[in-house]
C-alpha cells in the first residue's frame, strides 16, 4: 500500500546520498557553504519525511508507503521498502536527529569539513535504509553499509585513541553481522524447504514461521548480531570506546540511531520469525537486560568522564528497551519502542550538552567543572531538563517509556519487574551526582570563569529536543496511537505457535492489555 502514490521513502533515503555526491564537486575551501548546504539537505529531508507521519494510517498493521522493484531476479531479491507503526518513528527520529547532530559540528569539526559532511550524509542514507527495508537482503546491505561512515567518522575525527576505538567498533559489529548473513542465507533456503518458495521478503517470512527445532540456530545467530548492536550486556564492550572517542555528532548518531538498529532488528526478525524461540529464550534475554540495566548504572556511577558516564547509561537504558520487548506484552512492547525514541532524544541531547562544554573547555572530566549554574545558566537549564528526562522523572519522555516497560514486565514476569523498579533509583544516583558536581557547588576551577553561554546555533538545535522531551512526556498518545495496531499484530505473530515449553508459566498466551494514557 502506498497512499501517497509517490516513492517517498526512496526520496527520503537517497536525497542525502545525492547531496553527498554534489558536495564532492564543491571546493573544500568553502567550508561554510558546505556546512549550510549539508544542513539544508538534512532539513529538507526532515521536512519531506513529515508527510509520512500525517498520511500514516494507524488502523492497519500492513506496510505503508510501499515500493517494490525487482532487484536481483535470479535469486528473487527485491528493492522492497515500506514502514509500519514500528519503523515509522525510527525513520522520523533519524531525519530529525541527523540535522541536529550536523548543526552541532559547525564549530567542533574544523578539519576535513567536506569529507565530514559527505560522511554524515552517506550515513543518513545507510541508517534510513535499514529502517525501511522489507527485503532481508536489502536490509543486510544497508545494515553493513552504515558501518563504513561510522567507522570513518570515529577514525578520522575522533579522540586520541580513535584508531583502536573505531577498529573495535567495526570488527565487533562486523563479526556479529556476518553471522547474521549466514542466518539470512539459511533462512532463505530453509524457508524454501518448508514452504516451497524462495523469498527474502521479510513480511512473508514473518507470516510463515519455521518449525520450532529449526528456529534455534537462526534465532541465536540473529540474536548475537543484534545484541552486539544494541548493545546488550555482555556484548557492550565496544560501546564506551566508540562513544568516548567519537566526535559529538558521531556519539549522537551512534546512541540516537545506530543502536536502535539492534533493538529494531529484534522486532523485525527474532520476535515474529522465531516465535517459539522467543518464548523459550525470553527469560534469558530479560535476565541479560536486567544485568545490563544494573551493570550500566553501576559502572556509570564511577565514571570520571561525563561522556563515558552517558555511554554507560546507554547500556542501562537500552536494557529497559530489551526488557519491555521480551516481556511480550502490549504495553511493554509499546514502552520499548517509545524508549528507543526517548533514548535517541535524551541521550542524544546529553551528548550534545557534553559537546557544548567540551568545545569550550576541551575536557570532559567531571572534576574540571563545578558551579556552572551561576556561569552559564541557560546551558545549566537545558542540561537539567535532559538529565531529568534521562532519569525518567514524571512529565518527561523517559518516565512514560520506563513506566510502560515496568508495567509490561509486571504483567508477565512480576518478580523481574520488582527487581527492575530499583534500577530507576540508580539512574537517579549517577545522573544527579554528576549534575551536582558539574553544575552546582562552588566554582572551583578558574578556567570555567570565561565560559560563554549557549550560542544562537546551539539554541536552535537544543530547543526541538526539549520540545519532544515534554511532548512525549505529557501526551505520548500522539506516538502510541500510531504504533498500537502494528504492535498488536507483532504480538499476535509472536504468540502464534508456542510449541516449545520450558515452564508452564512462560507459554501462557499473553493477554493484550491496552492502557489508557494521557
Amino acid at each position, binding site marked *: 500500500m502506498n497512499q501517497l502514490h509517490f516513492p517517498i521513502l526512496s526520496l527520503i533515503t537517497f536525497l542525502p546520498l545525492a547531496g553527498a555526491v554534489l558536495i564532492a564537486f564543491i571546493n573544500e575551501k568553502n567550508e561554510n557553504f558546505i556546512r549550510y548546504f549539508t544542513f539544508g539537505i538534512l532539513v529538507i529531508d526532515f521536512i519531506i519525511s513529515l508527510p509520512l507521519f500525517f498520511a500514516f494510517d494507524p488502523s492497519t498493521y500492513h506496510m505503508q508507503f510501499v515500493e517494490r522493484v525487482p532487484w536481483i531476479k535470479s535469486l528473487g531479491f527485491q528493492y522492497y521498502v515500506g514502514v509500519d507503526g514500528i519503523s515509522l518513528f525510527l525513520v522520523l527520529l533519524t531525519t530529525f536527529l541527523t540535522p541536529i547532530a550536523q548543526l552541532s559540528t559547525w564549530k567542533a569539526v574544523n578539519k576535513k569539513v567536506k569529507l565530514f559532511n559527505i560522511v554524515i550524509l552517506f550515513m543518513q542514507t545507510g541508517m534510513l535504509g535499514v529502517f525501511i527495508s522489507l527485503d532481508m537482503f536489502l536490509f543486510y546491505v544497508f545494515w*553493513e553499509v552504515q558501518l563504513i561512515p561510522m567507522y570513518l567518522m570515529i577514525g578520522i575525527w575522533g579522540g586520541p585513541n580513535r584508531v583502536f576505538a573505531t577498529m573495535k567498533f567495526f570488527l565487533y559489529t562486523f563479526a556479529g553481522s556476518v553471522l547474521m548473513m549466514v542466518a539470512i542465507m539459511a533462512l532463505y533456503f530453509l524457508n524454501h524447504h518448508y514452504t516451497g518458495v524462495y523469498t527474502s521478503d521479510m513480511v512473508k517470512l514473518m507470516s510463515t514461521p519455521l518449525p520450532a527445532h529449526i528456529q534455534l540456530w537462526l534465532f541465536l545467530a540473529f540474536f548475537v548480531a543484534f545484541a552486539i548492536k544494541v548493545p546488550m550486556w555482555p556484548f557492550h564492550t565496544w560501546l564506551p570506546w566508540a562513544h568516548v572517542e567519537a566526535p559529538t555528532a558521531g556519539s549522537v548518531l551512534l546512541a540516537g540511531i545506530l543502536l536502535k538498529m539492534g533493538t529494531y532488528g529484534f522486532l523485525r526478525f527474532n520476535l515474529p520469525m522465531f516465535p517459539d524461540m522467543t518464548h523459550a529464550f525470553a527469560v534469558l534475554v530479560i535476565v541479560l537486560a536486567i544485568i545490563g540495566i544494573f551493570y550500566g548504572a553501576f559502572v556509570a556511577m564511577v565514571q570520571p568522564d561525563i561522556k563515558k558516564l552517558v555511554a554507560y547509561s546507554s547500556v542501562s537504558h537500552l536494557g529497559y528497551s530489551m526488557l519491555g520487548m521480551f516481556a511480550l506484552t502490549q504495553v511493554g512492547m509499546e514502552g520499548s519502542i517509545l524508549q528507543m525514541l526517548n533514548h535517541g532524544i535524551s541521550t542524544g541531547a546529553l551528548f550534545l550538552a557534553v559537546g557544548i562544554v567540551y568545545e569550550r573547555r576541551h575536557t570532559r572530566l567531571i572534576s574540571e567543572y563545578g558551579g556552572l549554574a551561576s556561569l552559564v545558566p541557560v546551558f545549566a537549564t537545558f542540561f537539567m531538563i535532559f538529565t531529568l528526562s534521562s532519569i525518567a522523572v514524571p512529565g518527561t519522555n523517559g518516565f512514560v517509556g520506563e513506566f510502560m516497560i515496568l508495567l509490561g514486565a509486571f504483567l508477565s514476569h512480576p518478580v523481574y519487574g520488582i527487581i527492575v523498579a530499583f534500577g530507576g533509583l540508580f539512574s537517579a544516583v549517577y545522573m544527579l551526582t554528576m549534575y551536582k558536581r558539574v553544575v552546582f557547588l562552588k566554582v572551583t576551577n578558574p578556567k570555567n570563569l570565561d565560559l560563554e553561554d549557549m550560542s544562537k546555533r546551539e539554541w536552535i538545535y537544543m530547543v526541538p529536543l526539549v520540545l519532544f522531551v515534554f511532548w512525549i512526556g505529557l501526551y505520548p498518545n500522539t506516538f502510541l496511537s500510531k504504533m498500537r495496531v502494528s504492535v498488536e499484530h507483532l504480538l499476535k505473530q509472536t504468540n502464534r505457535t508456542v510449541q516449545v515449553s520450558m515452564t508452564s508459566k512462560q507459554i501462557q498466551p499473553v493477554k493484550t492489555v491496552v492502557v489508557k494514557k494521557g
Partner: protein
Amino acid sequence: MLYSMKDLVAIVPELIVAAFAFAILLIDLWLPKRMKGFNGILALLGVLVAVGVTIAMYNFNATAFHGMVVMDRASNFANIVILLVTFVVIIMGFDFLNRENINIGEYYEIMLFSVVAMMVLASSYNLITIFIAIETLSIGMYILTGFLKNKNESVEGAMKYFILGSFASSFLVLGIGLLYGLFGSADLNVIKSGLSGADSLHKWVTILSFLLIFVGFGFKIAAFPFHSWTPDVYAAAPTPVSAFMSIAPKVAGFLVLMRFLVVGMAPIQVEWSKVLWIIAALTMTFGNTVALWQKDLKRLLGYSSIAHAGYMLVGITAANALGYGAVMFYLFGYLFMNLGAFAVAEFISTKEDRGTEIENLRGMGYRYPLIGLAMLMFMFCLAGVPPTVGFIGKYYLFSAAVKSHLYWLAVIGVINSAISAYFYLNIVVTMYMKGEPENPPAVLNSLPLKIVVLVGALGVAYIGVFPGSLLDVALKSITF
C-alpha cells in the same frame, strides 16, 4: 586429414591471440628502441579483437580435436575474464615498464603466449590438454616473474616459483598417468563413465589420483598447503605481472578444476567435496591469519589472494549450480577489486626498492583523494562489505554452501571475512587516520594507471549495486 575447419572454429579466440603474439615477435625486430611502446598497443589490439570475437561467439557450442578442447559458455566466460585482465594489465604496465627499462617486445609476447595457454586450459576437456596448457602457461609465468633481471628478489622469486612449480607438475602428471592407466583414456567423459561402474579398488585409486592432480591445480590456484610460493612471487615479480598472476591463471585454473571435478569426478563427488571442504577451510583461514602480520602491500595481497582462493573453493565444495555460478561471478568481480588494489600498489612503488610498504600509503587519502577513495573501496570490497561486488560475490559463494547444508563451512567463511576486515581496514586507517608524512614518498604518476584505478573502483561499486544481469550470465555459463 583428421581435423577439419570446424575444429579450428572452436579455437578462433586462441588463434587470434597467438597470431598477435607472433606478429609482435616479428615486428619487434624492426622497431627502434624508443618505439617499443608500439608492441603494447599491438598487444592491446590483439586482446581487444579476441574479446570481441569471444563475445560474438559466446553462445557457440563446439567440441574440437576429438574432444580435446571444447568451446562452451563457461570457457567463453573464463576467456573473456582472462582477456580483460590481460587488457588491464597491459595498460597498467606502460609507465612501469618504461621506468624499469623492461619495455621490450618479449614482455608482451610471453604474456600473450601464456594467455593463449590459459585460454586453452579453460577450454580443455582432456587431461592431456590440461597438462600441456598448465605447463605452457607456467613457463610464461616463470619468465615474467624474473623480468626485473637486475633485481635479485625478482630472479630469486622466479627460481623459487620454477622449482616448486615443476615439483607440483610432477604430481599432476602422475595423477593423470594413474587415471589413464585405470580408464584407458584421458578424456573427462570417458573417465566419468568408466568411474560410474567401477569397483571399489578403482574408486580408491581414482581418489588417490584426484589428490595427486589436485596438487597441481592447487598450486596454480594457490590453495593451502600448496600456496607457499604466492607471497614471495607476488612481492618479487614486477607489479603488473603480480596483478596478472593473481587473477588470470586462477580463472583458468578454477574453471578447469570445476570441469575436472564436476564432469570427470562426478561419481566420487561425496569424496572430493569432503577433501575440498577441508582445503577450503584451511586456505581461507591460513591466508587471512598470516595476512594480519604483513607490512608490505604486495605480500599482503599475496596472502589475501590465497584467502580468496579459499572462498572460491567454498563455492566448488558446495557442488551445486549456484556455487559454480558464484565462482564464475566471483572471478569476474575479483578482476576489478584485485587489479585495482594491485594498481594502487604499483602507484606507490618506487624504483629503488620494492617500495610497496603499507607505510607509504600514509596520508594517501588526502594527497590523492580519488585514488585514496578508490583504494578504500577496494579494501572494503576485498573484506566483503556492501555495496561492493566483493560482498555480493561472497554472499553467493556462502549461500551456495548453505544451500548444500554446509553451514559450518559458511560460518568459517564469514568468520574469515571478519578477520580479514582487520588487515584490509588497517590500510584504510593508514591512508586516512594516521596523519600525513613529512616527506611524502614518490609515486608512479602514470595517467593510464590512474584510469585503471578509477575504472576499477567504478566497476566494484556498479556491479555491487546492480549485480543482477552479470549474475545471470555467470549462473548460465555453467553448462556442464
